[in-house]
Structure formats: C-alpha cells, structure tokens
C-alpha cells in the first residue's frame, strides 16, 4: 500500500487488482525477451565463427546488460502495480502512479468528455479492463489499468453520472 510524498494527505486510495501483475508480466516477457533474443544474435554468430566483428566481450556485454535491465524492470513490476491507485472525491477523480517517478493527477468530473473501457487478450482472460478518461486536453493522461471488469463498469457508470451532474463547458 504505497502512498508517496506528493499525494494529498487524508486520502484512501483504491488499488487495482493484483492480477494486473500478470498482465504486466506478459507484456514484459513479450517485449524484453524478444529484444534479448535479437541482441543475442551477434553472440551466436560470433561463436559460430560467421562473424569476426564484434569482439566476444562486446557480444556478451550487450545482451548481459540488457538482461540486467530487464530483470530490474521485472523486479519493479509488482511494486509499480501496487503503486497504482485511484480515489473518487465529491467533485473529482484522483489517479496516482509510480514510485520512482511519481505522478498524481486530478480530473474534475465536469471536465470529462468521454470514458473508454478497453481490454487486451491477457486482460480479458483475467477478467480485467483498462479505463481511460478523456478531457478536452490531450495532455490529460488519465488511465487506470488493471481494474476488475465489474469495478470498471461501476466506475464508468459512476463517472458518467457525476459528469452529467457537474457538466461544464470548455
């Protein structure tokens, strides 16, 4: 239950589903393992004697460094997922994320233009969804990933109802 220094005090954050770690892991595996395999190709070629450049140490160092970075990211994933939180206040929705690079965002209900709910294949298999709020500003990056599907639907209805009540122009 991480709560960073920049969060407004006296808030109870709602957390996303721990199952979202699996989604992030799948994404991590897909991205990083593929990259690792590509970066290891020179090593294979050098070992096989087809290539004379790069030197062996470089061919080893690059994928090794990549592996360390990937593992570091892997270790961070559960913590990052635990750091995602959202809180519904009377007039606005707060969304926080991050431990190292923290961000807390507040979106007034009256400013929402529309709400998106999306789910990728892994998310769908786990019964999760991603909710995204859109305001008139492209800079509003208000996304809550890893919500249980029924919580996502509830939040969507709630946000729509509140947005309707507090509707404001641009």
């Amino acid at each position: 239950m991480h709560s960073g220094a920049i969060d407004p005090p006296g808030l109870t954050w709602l957390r996303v589903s721990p199952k979202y770690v699996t989604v992030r892991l799948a994404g991590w595996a897909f991205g990083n393992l593929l990259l690792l395999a590509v970066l290891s190709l020179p090593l294979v070629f050098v070992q096989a004697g087809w290539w004379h450049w790069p030197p062996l140490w470089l061919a080893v160092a690059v994928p090794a460094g990549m592996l360390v970075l990937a593992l570091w990211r892997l270790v961070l994933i559960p913590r990052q997922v635990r750091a995602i939180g959202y809180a519904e206040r009377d007039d606005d929705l707060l969304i926080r994320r991050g431990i190292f690079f923290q961000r807390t965002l507040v979106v007034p209900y009256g400013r929402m233009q529309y709400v998106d709910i999306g789910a990728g294949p892994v998310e769908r298999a786990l019964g999760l969804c991603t909710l995204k709020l859109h305001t008139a500003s492209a800079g509003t990056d208000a996304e809550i990933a890893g919500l249980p599907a029924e919580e996502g639907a509830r939040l969507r209805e709630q946000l729509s109802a509140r947005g309707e009540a507090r509707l404001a122009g641009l």
Partner: protein
Amino acid sequence: MTAGGTGVAPGSTAGAGGAGSPQSGWLRVHPASPFVRGWLALAAIGFFFGRDTFERLLQGGPLVDEQFAGRAPWLLLGGGTVLLLTVLGYVLSWYFTRYQVAEGYVRVNTGVVFKQQRQARLDRVQAIDIVQPLLARIFGLAELRFEVADAGESAVRLAYLRAEEARQLRATILSRAAGVLPDPQRPEAPAVEAPEHAVLTVPPSRLAGSLLLSEQSFFVVLGGALSVVLSAVTENRSFYFYLIPAALGLVAAYWSSFNKGYHFTAAVSPDGIRLRYGLLDTQAQTLPPGRIQALRVSQPPLWRIFGWYRMQVNVAGYGTSGGSGEGSARTTLLPVGTHADVLTMLSLVLPDPGTPEPVRIFTAGLSGLADPSGAPGQDADGGFVTTPRRARLLAPLGWRRNGFTATDTALLLRSGRWWRHLVVVPHQRTQSIALQQGPLARRFGVADLVLHTTAGPVSPRLVQAGLDEGRALFDAQSARARAARKRQSSEHWLDQVRQNTSVSEPAEAAQAGDPVPRQPPQTAGSPGEPGQRGPQFEHRQDPYRQEGPHHD
C-alpha cells in the same frame, strides 16, 4: 466497449444533419470564388499549353511555324478540353456549395458526387476569422472561418464571400452565439456589427526590430560567423556558395514573419477581441469573451534591451499547428509589444484580474526575481512563491525566477532567467492537474505541477516548486477551478453576464462555506445588453489602469 460519455454534445460536426432543415435561407458563396481559389491550377494549365508559343515569341520567331501548324489544332483541342473540364468542375462545385445560418446552427452543404452536409452549433464558436489572401483582396472577397473546439481544421470555411458580406455574417453569427435574440418583428434583419475600439497597433519598425533581435537571428549570426571562420581557416571559398540557399531560406522566413505580423492591430468589441494583421494576405480574427484557455508572455534575451514581449494563446479551435506559419500567427495574441501593451492585452483577455493590484503582480511575473535569501512570498516580488533555496543546485539560474502566484481568477506561473516566460491560466479553464516528482526532485524536496489545457503553443508547467507549496497548490487549485466552473454555466456569454448580475447574491450566500474567496461577477469588460453595448463598454473600469505610470 466505449460508452459513458458525459453528455457534452460533440457540437462540432454532425454528418448528415441538414436533411430536415428548412429550404429557405440557403445561400451560395461568391461565383468568382472557385477561380480565386483555383487560379494556380488555371495558370498551370495556361502555362503548360501556352509555353511553346510564348517561348517562340520571345525568340522573335514567327508565331506559327510550319511544324507547329500541324499540331496546333490538337494542342488547342487538348488545352481547351482540360480548361473546360476544370472550369466546369469549378462551376459545379460552386453551384453545389450552399450555406445557411439559422436556428442556432450554421450549415454547409458541399460536394458534387460525394455530398457532405455539415452543421455546427453557433454557441460552440471558439473563434471566427476572416482571411483575405492577396488575390481575394484584389477582388474584394474574403474567406470566413468558423472554429469549434476540435483542435483541428476549421469546422466551417466559407470561401469566398464579398468582404462586406463576410463581416455581416460574422456579426450575425457572433450575436446569435452571444445569445442576442433576433427581433421578432423583423427576424430577417441583419445583426448590427458591434462597435469596436482600437487598442494597440504594432509599428512596422518595431516588428522589423523584433525579427532582427529574435532567437532566429542569433543563430543566423552564429552560423554566419562560424562559416566565415571555417572558410578562413581552411582557405576554402566554396563555403560561401553553400550559404546562398540558406540565406534565401532565411529571407523567406523573415519575409513570412514580417508579412504575417505587419500592421498588427488589436481592437476590443463586445463580441470579443479583434486581431488584424498582414501585409499582402490580411487576416482578422475574433476571439469571443472567455475563449482563451491559456496565455503565455515571453521575452527572448535580446528583446530585453527594448523591453519587448510576445504573447501567445491556446484557443480550443486553433489547435496546435504550431510549426506552420499560419498556425503560429493565429495563436499569437501580440507579436511584439511593450510592457504597457502586454498589460493592455491582459486587461482584454482577463478583464477581472482577481487582484487589487494587477500591475504589480504581472510585472513581478514578467521580470521579477526572488530575494536571494529565498524567503518565500516576498512582498516586493508580487507574492510569487519560488523554488526553495534548498533546490538551487537543481536550477542554479532559475530558482529565484521559477514560481507561481494565484489571483482570484487566474493562476500565474513564471519561469526562465534568460528566456523569461509568464503563463496565465484562468481557473475555470483548467482541464486537469498533475503533480509529478522524480527521484532527483524528491532528493531536493521539490515537485512539478502540470496544468492540462486544450492543445496550443502554451503548456503550463510549474517547475520545481517546494513540496509543501506544490501540494497545497494542487489542492487549492482543484478547489478554485471547481468554484470558478460553478459560476460559469452558459455557453452564451451574454446570458452569463445577465445571470451573474441577477443571481449573484443568493449564489454568494449558498457558497458561504466555499474555501475560496469569491470574486465579483465578471461584468467588467464583458458584453452588456445589446442596446447599451457602447455606453457600458465605455465606462468599464479597468483595474489595470488604476496605478501610476508603467515602468517599461
């Protein structure tokens, strides 16, 4: 999958909307307009087929030689056919383009084969521009552009109308959008164009000076000096030849800036702020009250010599289009102006500054610097809260400059020691707010606050605010934005004024528990009732002028 919109009608464009609309009142654009728009194509056709003859004429040969005589009929036939088809296409497209302004909508039908019917709500207007390219200007024509909040291309472009007609249509649209009801006895009577007062003009000499002292010139001089040094060192004269295309490009860039900014005039009318500019192609923009989402006053280092500033705005309809010349011209509120000009424009954009002494605060925002001791909220510094002294290693130059202050109506963010910036965001225009902190910032106990507004050249960001101050501002700002939005309820700005003047008393009682101090209703400088537009406008009190002479 996608659902749950908050009920804000898209308002901009509705595909096939005009089906059931009344057939009366449909108008066509000026018959000459396709030719004015497509003169380039016609000229190209003429050039392609006429070049042969023309060249022979130049060479002094006979107009028609032996070899040519055989081909001439075919050439003429081909050229004539292409020309005829083009003209026919123009005429058809003109015939099928019709527009109508009625019942709170502007509708445009276009297309010969693929039909398009577009309608936009008048009260959603974000800006109206009248554009006159050189050729259109010669023929006394003008293009009308109607902008809604879609951050992209113009919702409605009517090209071309007679200049007088375009102005008339603009007046009608603006008065309908403001909420002025047409006279029931004579509903067809044209709306009276709102009176306007010229507020300031940028003299051409200052514009030229500002271009010479711009950032661009700095790099030009730097590049020029570098190439001279290089050619001297390597004794290779061919460097100068490479400079020729660069110089041509530069001349074009300077010319474009000069052409766009020439004779920049700002005027104010009850319909909003009017901006006019242009040497060959002229443009007249109208920004209705309350349409400006964010504003930035900036000063490059060299402009400090003469105390010049530049002002840019975010308007929902204009979008980013920052790079292109026209886009950046449209989002410029003042290409170059003195300190007094900046205050004048601020008084138009933000009629109620929400503070008793705006001149002092805005001056501090433009050029103020915190006390080196770092004590926050220095009185001499207009109440700006700056980066705490502990973070001076993070921003060795800017820490005394980066800061914020909030008035009752707007948030002011200033930054930059050399490139000075002041960003002003009215409270009710904030879309969302984010507080961000990276590991290094955490080490120094500071955080960044980002305000999200509609797309445009201004992206408001408070850098390296003290953690406690930043967090307090984050909370206070969302409360302020909420309170400001509650007061603003109608898209019709005239209704807004009526409402503010009539119901402000009970509303004040109801909001007694509001943590934010209430501001007086925003009547100063806003449009009055249509009958008394002029007088009220004359007598508006201007808080920006209460103080003594401005020091430039």
